[in-house]
C-alpha cells in the first residue's frame, strides 16, 4: 500500500521533524516499509503561464509555435500538444528547470527556438494523462511556482500489505497517522465531518439486511444535484501518488475516503438503485461487475439489491448497471461493514480481489461506517456546493462487536518483556493509540478501541505488543534466561539418520541427494516406470506432479539416468518421506525411508547387488549390533524390480527393507551397458528395533581352529542365514564365528565355502574332539538340503 506524507500530515502536525527518519521508525514499530519515494524534488522551474498566441508551424502539421506569457514577458515555445489554444493557462517548464528529472533547456525544434515546455499531467508526474496539456482552471497569478499551487512535493512510502494483515485500522491514512502521532508524540486531528443529525427529518432510505450474520452494519444516504464531474487537482494527485487513478468525482470520492479512513464505500447511481436489500439468492445466476466481467453468483454470495435486482457483489465490486456515469447527478451512498470471512470466501470463489474486499477481509470496524459517511459528505459538499442531501442518514446496525476490556498490571508487562518499562510510559502509549485506560497504581483497566477490537486485540498479550513496539525493540536491554539445566534428549529417529548418512558417505562414497515428494510422471514414463496408485495433491502445479511417491527408488533411478555422464561408477542416496496410501483412519501412511541407487559401467550387476547387501548388513551391525537377514523375495512389490534378483532385508524377524536390481525393461532404458542396483530401508521400522547391548568377550589365550565346509548350492538357492542358524544351533559353546570365505561357480555346479571358528577360553581345542560336532552339523545341513560338495 502506498501512503502519502502530505495526506498523513492532514491529521498530525509533523512540522520540524525528519519525515524520512519517522518513516523508518514506523517501519521498526508498526509495519514494514518497503520503499520511500520522494516526489517532486526533480521537478522545478515550472510556473503558471498563459498561452498568448498560437501559430501553425510551417514545417509540421502537429507542432505549433507559441508565445507564452510567464508574467514577466513573452517566451517562444514549440509545442506538439493537440489541445493547445490561445488563452489557455498551463504549467510551463522554463529553460533551466526540470520536470520529473528531465532537464528543460533551450532547444531548436524543427528549425524554431523553444525556451521551455508546456506540460501534460503525465509529464509533471501527477497522473497518467498524456493526452494533452494540463489546463489550469483556477485563477492564479502568472509566474507562480506550480509547486505552490499543487501538492507535487510529497514523500510516498510503500508498506508491505502482508505486514498489515492483522491491522484493519491501518488500511487508510488516518490510522497510519495515529501511529505517526504516537511515535512523534504529537496529537491526532479529526478530519472535517458533516453533522448528519441535521438530516434526521428527511425521509429514510429503505434498507433491509436479510443476512445479519454476513453484514454487521449498512448505512445509506442519498444526495442529488451533483454537478461537478472532475475532482480537484490535489485530490487527483493524492489518488495517483497512492496508486489509484481518478475517474469522476463520485467514484474518486469513494476511493479517496477509502484510502483516507480505510472504509470501502460504494456510490450507486440513484436512478438505478434507490432502495437496498442485503441478501443471497438460492438460484445461481450471472452478474456483470463494473469491470465488464460476467461473474457466476452462487447461493453463498452476499449481494446488494434493489428489491430483487442485484446491483453489487457485497464488499467486492459494484455492478456495471448501477455504475456512476457521465450524466449521473444523484447517488445513493453505501457505507457498510460486511463479515470478513464471507467476503474472503466470495472473493476467493470469484477470483476477484479488490481494494474493498482486501479491507473487509481484515475485519473492519463497524463504527467506521458512520465516520466515513460524514467525511464523504464533508468532502462532497465542500467540492460541489450545489449538492444536496435528500435523505436522512439511514443506519441499520445488525450486529455489534462486544467491547473488549482487559486488565493488566506492570508485573505482567515486566515478566513478558524482561525489562522495566515505566507505568507512565505504558499508560501514555496505550492512550496515544486510542485505548481507554483507567490506571490504579500499577494496574491498568484497558478498553480496546473499536478499530482494534474486531479481532486484532483480544487478549492481554496483545497489549504487550502495543507497549513494546512503541517503546522500541532497539531500546531493549538483553538478558539471558534463568532456565535450569536439563539433559538433552536425542532420539534414534534423529541419530540413526546421521549415522547412516556418515556410513554411506565415508565407507561407500555415496552422494546424498534430495528429491520431491511427488512422482514426476514425465521422468517415470521415460524409464518405463508405472506410477503407483496413491494419494494425490489436489492443487499440483501440473498433473504430472500430483501423485505422491510410494517408494524412494523411482526418482533415484531418474537421477541415475540424468547423472550418467557424471562418472563411470557412482551411487546416490536420500533419506526422505514416502506415502503408502491411506491408513484405516483416512490419514496418509507416511514413512521415512532410506533409498540407495548404485550405477556402474566398471562393475557387474551382481557386485552392486551384493554391495547393497553389505551396506544393509553393516548398517544393522554398526547401529544395532545385530545381523541383518537376507532372503530372496520371489514376489517383488514393484514392477521396476527384478523378478528374480530381489531380496528382502530383515532384522529380528521384521522386514525392514529390500534391495534389488532393475527389471531389464527399466534398466535398459537407463543404460544398456551399465549395472544398476538399488535398495530401500524403512527408517522408522529400523529405528524401532532395539539396539543390542555390545557384549565384551574376554579374548582367549588359546588358539582357535578354523574348519571349512564347502556346500553345494542347489537350484533353489542357498539361504545363508538358515545355514548359519543351523551351524550356530549345533556348534556348541565353542563356536565363535561363521562366515563365507568363498563362492565357487564351476561347471560341476556352484558351491560356497563356509568357515567356522571354534575357540575355548580354557584350553586348546583339538580337531578330534570337534569331529562329532562337525558331523552333527553336516548331518543337519544335509537334512535341510545343503549337501557337502563332493
Amino acid at each position: 500500500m502506498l501512503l502519502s506524507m502530505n495526506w498523513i500530515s492532514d491529521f498530525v502536525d509533523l512540522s520540524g521533524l525528519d519525515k524520512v527518519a519517522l518513516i523508518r521508525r514506523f517501519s521498526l514499530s508498526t509495519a514494514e516499509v518497503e520503499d520511500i519515494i520522494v516526489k517532486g524534488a526533480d521537478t522545478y522551474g515550472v510556473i503558471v503561464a498563459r498561452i498568448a498566441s498560437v501559430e501553425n508551424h510551417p514545417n509540421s502539421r502537429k507542432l505549433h509555435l507559441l508565445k507564452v506569457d510567464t508574467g514577466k514577458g513573452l517566451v517562444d515555445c514549440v509545442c506538439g500538444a493537440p489541445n493547445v489554444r490561445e488563452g489557455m493557462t498551463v504549467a510551463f517548464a522554463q529553460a533551466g528547470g526540470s520536470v520529473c528529472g528531465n532537464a528543460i533547456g533551450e532547444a531548436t525544434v524543427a528549425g524554431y527556438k523553444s525556451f521551455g515546455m508546456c506540460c501534460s499531467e503525465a509529464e509533471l508526474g501527477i497522473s497518467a494523462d498524456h493526452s494533452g496539456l494540463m489546463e489550469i482552471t483556477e485563477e492564479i497569478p502568472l509566474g507562480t511556482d506550480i509547486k505552490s499551487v499543487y501538492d507535487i512535493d510529497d514523500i510516498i512510502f510503500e508498506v508491505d500489505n502482508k505486514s498489515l494483515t492483522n491491522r484493519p485500522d491501518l488500511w487508510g491514512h488516518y490510522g497510519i497517522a495515529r501511529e505517526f502521532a504516537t511515535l512523534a508524540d504529537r496529537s491526532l486531528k479529526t478530519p472535517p465531518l458533516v453533522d448528519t443529525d441535521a438530516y434526521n427529518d428527511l425521509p429514510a432510505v429503505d434498507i433491509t439486511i436479510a443476512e445479519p450474520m454476513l453484514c454487521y452494519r449498512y448505512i445509506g444516504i442519498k444526495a442529488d444535484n451533483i454537478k461537478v464531474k472532475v475532482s480537484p487537482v490535489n485530490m487527483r494527485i493524492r489518488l495517483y501518488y497512492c496508486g489509484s487513478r481518478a475517474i469522476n468525482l463520485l467514484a474518486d470520492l469513494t476511493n479517496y475516503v477509502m484510502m483516507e479512513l480505510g472504509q470501502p464505500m460504494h456510490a450507486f447511481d440513484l436512478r438505478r438503485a434507490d432502495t437496498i436489500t442485503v441478501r443471497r439468492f438460492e438460484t445461481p445466476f450471472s452478474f456483470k461487475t463494473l469491470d465488464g466481467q460476467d461473474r457466476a453468483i452462487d447461493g453463498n454470495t452476499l449481494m446488494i439489491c434493489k428489491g430483487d435486482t442485484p446491483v453489487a457483489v457485497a464488499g467486492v465490486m459494484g455492478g456495471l448497471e448501477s455504475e456512476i456515469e457521465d450524466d449521473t447527478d444523484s447517488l445513493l451512498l453505501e457505507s457498510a461493514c460486511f463479515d470478513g470471512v464471507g467476503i474472503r470466501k466470495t472473493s476467493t470463489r470469484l477470483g476477484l480481489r479488490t481494494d474493498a474486499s482486501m479491507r473487509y477481509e481484515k475485519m473492519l470496524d463497524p463504527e467506521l461506517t458512520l465516520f466515513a459517511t460524514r467525511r464523504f459528505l464533508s468532502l462532497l459538499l465542500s467540492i460541489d456546493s450545489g449538492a444536496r442531501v435528500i435523505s436522512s442518514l439511514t443506519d441499520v446496525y445488525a450486529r455489534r462487536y462486544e467491547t473488549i476490556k482487559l486488565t493488566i498490571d506492570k508485573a505482567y508487562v515486566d515478566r513478558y518483556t524482561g525489562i522495566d518499562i515505566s507505568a507512565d510510559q505504558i499508560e501514555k502509549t496505550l492512550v496515544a493509540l486510542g485505548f481507554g485506560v483507567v490506571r490504579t497504581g500499577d494496574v491498568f483497566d484497558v478498553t480496546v478501541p473499536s478499530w482494534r477490537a474486531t479481532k486484532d486485540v483480544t487478549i492481554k498479550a496483545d497489549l504487550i505488543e502495543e507497549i513494546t513496539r512503541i517503546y522500541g525493540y532497539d531500546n531493549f536491554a538483553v538478558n539471558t534466561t534463568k532456565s535450569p539445566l536439563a539433559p538433552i534428549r536425542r532420539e534414534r529417529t534423529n541419530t540413526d539418520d546421521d549415522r547412516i548418512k556418515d556410513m554411506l558417505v565415508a565407507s561407500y562414497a555415496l552422494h546424498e541427494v534430495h528429491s520431491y515428494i511427488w512422482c514426476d510422471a514425465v521422468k517415470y514414463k521415460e524409464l518405463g516406470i508405472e506410477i503407483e496408485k496413491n494419494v494425490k495433491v489436489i492443487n499440483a502445479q501440473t498433473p504430472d506432479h500430483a501423485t505422491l511417491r510410494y517408494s524412494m527408488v523411482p526418482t533415484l533411478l531418474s537421477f541415475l539416468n540424468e547423472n550418467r555422464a557424471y562418472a563411470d561408477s557412482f551411487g546416490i542416496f536420500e533419506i526422505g518421506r514416502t506415502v503408502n496410501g491411506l491408513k484405516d483412519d483416512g490419514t496418509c501412511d507416511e514413512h521415512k525411508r532410506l533409498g540407495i541407487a548404485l550405477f556402474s559401467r566398471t562393475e557387474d550387476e551382481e557386485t552392486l547387488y551384493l554391495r547393497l547387501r553389505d551396506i544393509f548388513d553393516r548398517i544393522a551391525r554398526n547401529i544395532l549390533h545385530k545381523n541383518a537377514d537376507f532372503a530372496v523375495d520371489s514376489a517383488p512389490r514393484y514392477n521396476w524390480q527384478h523378478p528374480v534378483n530381489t531380496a528382502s532385508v530383515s532384522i529380528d524377524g521384521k522386514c525392514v527393507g529390500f534391495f534389488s536390481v532393475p527389471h531389464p525393461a527399466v534398466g535398459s532404458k537407463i543404460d544398456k551397458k551399465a549395472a544398476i542396483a538399488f535398495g530401500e530401508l524403512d527408517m522408522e521400522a529400523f529405528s524401532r528395533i532395539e539396539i543390542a547391548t555390545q557384549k565384551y568377550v574376554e579374548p582367549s589365550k588359546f588358539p582357535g581352529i578354523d574348519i571349512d565346509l564347502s556346500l553345494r548350492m542347489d537350484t533353489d538357492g542357498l539361504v545363508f542365514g538358515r545355514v548359519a542358524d543351523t551351524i550356530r544351533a549345533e556348534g556348541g559353546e565353542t563356536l565363535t564365528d561363521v562366515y563365507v570365505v568363498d563362492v565357487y561357480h564351476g561347471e560341476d555346479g556352484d558351491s560356497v565355502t563356509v568357515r567356522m571358528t571354534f575357540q575355548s577360553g580354557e584350553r586348546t581345542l583339538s580337531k578330534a574332539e570337534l569331529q562329532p560336532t562337525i558331523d552333527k552339523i553336516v548331518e543337519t545341513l544335509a537334512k535341510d538340503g545343503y549337501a557337502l560338495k563332493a
Partner: protein
Amino acid sequence: MKQKIEELKGRFEAGLSAARDEAELDALRVAFLGKKGEITDLLKGMRDLTPEGKKEAGQLINTLKNEVEASITARAEALKNEALERAIREAKHYNPTLPKKTDRGSYHPITLVARRLADIFSGMGFTVEDFVEVVDDYQCFEALNIPKYHPARDMQDTYYLENGQLLKTQTSAAQNHIMKKYGAPLRAIFPGRCFRNEATDACHENTFFQMEGMMIDKDISISNLIYFMKKMLSEVFESDINVRLRPGYFPFTEPGFELDISCTICGGKGCPSCKNSGWLELCPCGMIHPNVLIAGGIDPDEYTGFAFGLGMTRLAMMKYGVKDIRDFNSGNLKALSQFESL
C-alpha cells in the same frame, strides 16, 4: 710373544678392513675373540712364560683384546650406518604431488547446515526433533491460532491432498506435537521440509527446508528472545551479529517479530545485497501466542516462551553462495557432490 701379538694385530687389521658386512665382521669376531679364537690361544700360550713374562704378556694381550673389541664395535657401527645410507641412497623416490582419483561421497548441503545448527543448539540444551511432512489442518493451522478463512492462510499457498490432509507449509506445524510430547519447560529445534504451492525459479522453490526452534519456561521474556537470537545467529554466521526486531504478524506469536541481522556482506554499511539499509531480513520469531500454548497443553499463566524459524535452504544458499535454489532438489551430482563435509 710381543712379536706374536704384533703379527696377530696385523692379521686382525687386514681382516677388519676386509669385512664388508655384519656377517663377515661376526666371523672375524669369532676368529679372534671366540672360545677357540686366536686371542684365547694367546692366553693359553702364556702358561709357558715366567711370572714377569706372564704379567707383561697379560697386559699386552688384554690391551689387544680391548683394541680388537673396540675396533669390531666401531666397525659394526660404521657398517650399520653405511647400510642405512645405502638403503636411503637406493630408496625409490615417491612423488607425493601426484593426485590419484579416489571415490568420495558427499552430503547434501542442507544436511551440513542442519548438522551445524543442531550442534549449536545441542550446545545450548535444545533437543533435535524429527517430524512428518504430511500434516492435517489442525497441526498446520488450527493449533497455531490460524482459524479457517483467516487471512493469514493467504500468506501460504498450501498443497492440499485428496484425503483432506496437506503438505506442511511451515515447520511450525510441529509445535503442537512437540509441546504435547514434552510439556514445559521445553527447548527444541525441529528442522524439516516444507511445501508451498508456487512457481519455481532461481529464487523460489515449492519444496524447501526450514528449521524452527522453541523455548518455553517460566518467565521467558522478549529480552531473552533478543539475547538468544543474537547469540545463536552469531554462532551460525561465526561472527558477532547485530540483530534488530520489527513487528511482524504471525497468528501463532504475540508479539511477533521480523528479525533483521546486520548485513553479512557489508557489515551494516549498506550495499546492494541489503538494499543499502545495512540490514538483512532473516527470520521470523516471536513470543508464543497464549492460544498456541493452550492448544499444546501448556498453561500460559505459568509459562511463556519464544519460537523462531530459520530458512535453512536460504542459509545454505548464503553459506555456499548457491545462486539457483533449484540446484538443491536437482539430483545433479556436478552440483551436489561438491559438499564433502562441513
